[in-house]
């Protein structure tokens, strides 16, 4: 029997695979099609203080082996999430650990949402989204400066009842100072990567396809960038990393873990195949067996393996 369990701050997981934020709503739609208990955890859609309507449509465009999205953090707001979405998960999936993705316009917004959402009994950790490229305020700015990122992290850690994983942006010249600053500020771990800023243009109108002009690039196209950034952060920090970016297969998941990720989130792949997560989880034992492994512990040697 292959042992897929992993243990991270706040998260004792039966397997390391979880849907990525924004690609799985609050679980309800996918729950119509399979048993969410198969998942290691679930990262829910970004929560903000007020409800958000998001950007105008079109909100998505396809790119080679990737997609752009500019949803713009549409979500029903912390009140509805606390009163409806999280209780729905708690009732139907009492054993499913939830990671709450938190976003905001201002530091005060982030702090308020972290404080409130960390009290939900099924929220085991927070993923602090300081890297959304698709909103006018409170997206990327928080994620590109080590000082601002650290200040925000510190404020959120101070009020949160659960460990905070900070979701870093790939849209930076050097991720390492940001990661170090966030670690010093008390983050329990990192989540990376968020999407890269991209654009598609309709050659007919010569205007951007997305109403928001730019969008976040996700999917297999960005996998090599995710691996590089995970590897870079792993080379300077021992904190746990939830890795993501283009993961579609069990081999992809192990590749991110070999780069330094402790757990792996699956985003865009859910759209190509709604059963992507359970299929990947089911395939993990066989994939590990290819390398004569029966658990994930050898990936804990990664500190020795990584020389930067």
């Amino acid at each position: 029997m292959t042992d897929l369990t992993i243990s991270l701050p706040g998260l004792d997981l039966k397997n390391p695979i979880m849907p990525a934020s924004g690609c799985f709503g609050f679980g309800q739609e996918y729950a119509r099609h399979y048993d969410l208990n198969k998942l290691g955890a679930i990262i829910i859609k970004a929560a903000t203080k007020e409800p958000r309507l998001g950007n105008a449509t079109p909100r998505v465009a396809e790119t080679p082996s990737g997609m752009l999205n500019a949803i713009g953090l549409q979500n029903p707001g912390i009140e509805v999430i606390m009163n409806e979405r999280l209780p729905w998960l708690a009732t139907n999936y009492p054993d499913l650990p939830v990671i709450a993705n938190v976003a905001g316009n201002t530091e005060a917004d982030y702090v308020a949402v972290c404080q409130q959402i960390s009290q939900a009994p099924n929220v085991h950790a927070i993923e602090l989204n300081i890297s959304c490229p698709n909103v006018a305020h409170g997206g990327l700015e928080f994620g590109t400066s080590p000082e601002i990122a650290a200040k925000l992290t510190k404020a959120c850690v101070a009020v949160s009842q659960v460990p905070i994983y900070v979701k870093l942006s790939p849209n930076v010249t050097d991720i390492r100072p940001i990661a170090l600053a966030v670690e010093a500020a008390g983050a329990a771990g990192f989540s990376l990567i968020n999407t890269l800023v991209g654009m598609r243009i309709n050659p007919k109108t010569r205007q951007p396809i997305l109403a928001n002009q730019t969008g976040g690039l996700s999917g297999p196209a960005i996998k090599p960038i995710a691996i590089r950034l995970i590897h870079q952060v792993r080379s300077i920090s021992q904190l746990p990393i939830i890795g993501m970016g283009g993961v579609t297969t069990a081999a992809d998941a192990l590749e991110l873990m070999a780069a330094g990720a402790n757990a792996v989130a699956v985003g865009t792949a859910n759209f190509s195949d709604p059963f992507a997560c359970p299929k990947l989880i089911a395939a993990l034992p066989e994939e590990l067996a290819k390398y004569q492994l029966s658990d994930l512990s050898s990936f804990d040697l990664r500190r020795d393996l990584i020389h930067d």
Partner: protein
Amino acid sequence: MSLEYLLTITKQTEIIPGIYELCLYGDITQQPIKPGQFVDIKIPDDAHLLRRPFGIAHVDRQNKTITLLYRVVGKGTAYLSRCPLKTELSVLGPLGNGYPSDHLMPGQNALIIGGGTGIPPLYELSRQLVAKNINVHHVFGFANQAAIFYEAPFRALGPVSYATNDGSYGYHGHVGLLLDAQFADAVSHYDAVYACGPKGLLMAVDSRFSKHPHAYISLEERMACGIGACYACVTKLRRNPDIQLKICDDGPVFKTNEVLI
């Protein structure tokens, strides 16, 4: 109830330049399928991540096939059009909600309004209405005569009035003008109105039948998940634009005057 089916291409014909008729065989027909529902097809090439949504033009339970009619517009449909017979496609569906028609009684009248590649789901709708002994009248808009497809199959179900932008066939002008000119009493005459097509057509129908109790339009939007989880395909409620519905899940069919187009 399954969501994903592996369906096999049993027929693929270019019925007019750029428009393909695609027959897919498999278990999806064992589910109830309402006209107006759609399928979401994985293009079998790894570079194409997003599925492509298509209306279901015909359900043949006996032969276990569904028929789609699609136009080649970009890379995905071009790829699909080159897929040989026997290709297996991963298909999600049936998705969304179809056109309501339970209220219609035999002998009542329905008006079906469509344009371009909005026409496919209207064929299955018309077939099912005719099977229930509803009188169906079709009003279709096309760019020109050469762009018209499925004329004979529709005419076999009921009268069809065509409008073409260049006047090469039927009424000269767009569907809205044809409705004004020849269907002035449509609101009272028809017990149901159904529309699918380009935005301009939907707006024309939405405004002309805004108070009709059984007038429905079907919307299109770029989609990612196709099942309501990603918020890619939202549209705002007219009475309260702070409420957004998802076209893939709450639609694609909405009542007239319900959403902002």
